[in-house]
C-alpha cells in the first residue's frame, strides 16, 4: 500500500516536474518578453512625446475637427495619438511573441488569426472615424442650411444625415471585418428604402408639412413686386 502511494506521489511529482521544466522556462520567457515589450512600448511612447511635441499634424487635427470629434474638449494631440498607437502596438506584439513561446497549435492559431485581423481592424477603425467625421460635417452643413432656409425641424434633419452616414460607415466597416455582412446589408437597404419612402410621402401628401412649408416659402418669395432688401449687396 505504502509502495503504491509512493509510486503515485513520485509519478505526480515527476509529472509536475516535467510540466514545470517544460512550461516554466517558456512562461518565464513569455513574461520576460511581455515585460520587455511593455518597457519598450513605454519608452517609445515617452520618446514620441518628447520628439514630436508640436508637430504640424496637431494643427491638422484641430482644423479638420477630428480632434473635437474624438475628444470633445478638442485637446486631442497627434503626439498623443501616435504615442498611444505605438505603445499599444508594441505591447500587443510583445504579448503575441510571448504566447508564441509556448509553440502549441492553439497559440499558433490564435496568433495567425490575430495577425490577419489586425489590419482589417485598423481599416475598419479608419472607416468608422471617416464616417463619424463626414457625418458630423454634413450634419452640421444640413443644420445651417435648414436654419437659413427656415426649414422645419433642422436638428432632426441634421441627425438623419449624421445617422445615415454613420450607418453607411458601419456597414462598410462590418463588411471589411466580414462580420454579419448580410444582416448589415439588409438593414441598410431597409433603412435607405424607408428614408426614401418617408421623403416621398412627405413631399406627396397633399396636407403634409413639407408641402405647406414650400407653399409658404413660395408666397414669401413672391410677396408683392416690391424691392427687396436682399436684392443687392
Amino acid at each position, binding site marked *: 500500500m505504502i509502495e503504491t502511494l509512493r509510486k503515485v506521489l513520485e509519478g505526480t511529482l515527476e509529472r509536475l516536474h516535467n510540466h514545470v521544466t517544460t512550461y516554466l522556462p517558456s512562461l518565464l520567457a513569455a513574461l520576460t518578453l511581455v515585460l520587455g515589450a511593455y518597457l519598450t512600448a513605454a519608452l517609445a511612447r515617452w520618446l514620441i512625446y518628447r520628439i514630436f511635441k508640436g508637430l504640424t499634424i496637431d494643427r491638422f487635427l484641430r482644423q479638420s475637427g477630428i480632434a473635437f470629434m474624438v475628444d470633445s474638449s478638442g485637446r486631442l494631440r497627434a503626439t498623443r495619438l501616435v504615442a498611444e498607437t505605438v505603445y499599444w502596438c508594441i505591447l500587443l506584439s510583445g504579448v503575441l511573441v510571448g504566447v508564441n513561446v509556448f509553440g502549441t497549435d492553439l497559440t499558433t492559431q490564435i496568433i495567425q488569426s490575430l495577425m490577419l485581423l489586425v489590419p482589417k481592424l485598423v481599416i475598419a477603425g479608419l472607416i468608422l472615424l471617416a464616417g463619424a467625421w463626414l457625418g458630423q460635417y454634413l450634419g452640421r452643413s444640413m443644420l445651417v442650411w435648414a*436654419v*437659413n432656409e427656415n426649414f422645419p425641424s433642422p436638428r432632426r434633419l441634421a441627425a438623419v444625415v449624421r445617422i445615415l452616414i454613420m450607418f453607411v460607415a458601419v456597414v462598410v466597416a462590418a463588411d471589411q471585418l466580414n462580420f454579419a455582412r448580410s444582416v448589415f446589408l439588409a438593414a441598410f437597404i431597409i433603412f435607405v428604402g424607408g428614408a426614401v419612402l418617408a421623403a416621398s410621402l412627405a413631399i406627396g401628401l397633399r396636407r403634409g408639412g413639407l408641402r405647406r412649408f414650400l407653399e409658404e416659402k413660395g408666397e414669401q418669395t413672391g410677396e408683392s413686386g416690391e424691392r427687396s432688401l436682399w436684392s443687392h449687396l
Partner: protein
Amino acid sequence: MAEPPLPDDARRAADVIRRADIVIGIPSYNNGRTIGHVVQAAYAGLAKYYPQLTGVVINSDGGSTDNTQDAVLSSRVEDSHLLLFSTPLLAAHRLSFPYHGVPGKGSAFRLIFQMAKRLDAKACAVVDSDLRSITPEWIDLLLRPILFAGHDFVAPYYQRHKYDGTITNSIVYPLTRMLYGVGVRQPIGGEFGISARLISRYLEREDWETDVARYGIDIWMTTIAIAEGFRVCQSFLGAKLHDAKDPGSDLTAMLQQVVGSVFMLMQEYKPIWQNRTGSTPAELFGFRFDVGLDPVNVNVNRMVDAFRRGCQELGEIWAGALEEDTFAAVRRLGGCLSEGTGAFHLDDELWARVVLDFACAYQRHPMSRGMILRSLTPLYLARVASFVRETETLVASEVEAKIEQLCVTFENLKPHLIAEWNADSVRAGSPHPPLERVEPRELSRENLEV
C-alpha cells in the same frame, strides 16, 4: 493656372476690331428689361466724352434665356439727340458673348478683362446691367481719373437708401477700411473703372475659380487694388437705382461669397493689413448732389425670427467660431428675445467682434469654411434688424454718421484681431512688426473735380 482661351466668337471679334482705347463691360444674366438702357448710356458716354477715342461695349452674358442679347445688339441712340460738340471718329463697337466657366459675375468680368487686354485698351469700365439710374456721365466719371489723372482703380460713390447695400454698410466697408487703411465707401458697388496695368494684374492671378467667379469679384478687385498699392479713387455717380429683382440673389450665398472673399484675401495680404492702423478716405471725384431714392422694404420681425432660430439651433457652430465672451454675449442677446423683441439690440462693438471672430475662425478651420460662413447669416440678420430699428427715424447724413461710428469701432478692435489672428505664431514666440499709422487725409475742394 493659365488664362483660359477666349471663346471663338470673342476671338474673331477681337481680330476684326484689333485695337480699342476704351472697353466698357456689362455682365448680364436675364436683364433684357434694363440692359438696353445701360448699353445706350455707355454708347452715349463714349460718343459724348471720348469722341476721339475708339471704344467697344462688351456684354458678357451668363446664358440668359430672355432677350438680353437682342436688347444689347438692337439698342440705339441717335447722335443728334446727344448734342455732341464733336462727331466721334468711329462709332463704338457693340459685342455680346456668353462667357464660359463657373457661372457668375466674376467669370463675366474675366472675359471682359481678357478682351480689354487683347484689344490693348487703356482703360476699362464695368457697369451692372440692371441699372436704371445710369447716365452717360457715369462712363466719364469712371474713366477720366484713369485716362487723365493716372489712377488705376475708380470705385463708385453713390447715394443709396439707408437700408440698401446692407452687406456693404455693415461688413465690407468697415472691414476693408479697417484692414487696409483706405476708405472706399462702395467697395462692392458694381461699377468700376480699371487701368490696363491693373487689368493685367487681375488676369495673372490664379484665384478666378473661387468665390471670385461669383459675387466675390467686386471686393476682390477693390482689395487687390488697395493692398497692392495701385492708385485708387472714388467718383460720385449720383443715385444708384437698380432693377427690383436680381435673379441670382440669395442672401446666404451672396454673404458667403462676399465675406469669404474678404477673409480669403486677409490671409494673402496679412503682412499688409497687420502693419496698418487708422484709415484715410480714398480721393473722391465728381460733384456731389442730393437725389431722391427708391424706398426699401424691411421686415424686421422676419430677421429677428431668423436670429432666434439661429440661437436655438446653431449654438454648437457659433461656439466653435466665436470667442467665449462674444459667444456668451450673443447667447444673452438671444435670451433677450424670450422677453420680447423690445430689448433686442446687437450693438456696434458686439457686431464687430462677431465679424472679426468669424474671420479668425475662417483661418483656423479651413475644412469648414463654407459652413462657418453660412452660419453667419442669422447673426447678420440680427445686426441688420438692430440697424434698421436704430436708424428708423434718422435721415441719410445721420445714418452715415452711424456707419462712420461702426467703422471706428472696427478700427479700435484691430489690435484684438491681430492678436487673435496671430494666436498660433504668438504662442510660437514670433513677434509681429510695429504698426504703421495711416494718417487721415481731409477731402479738399480740389478733390471733388478732375
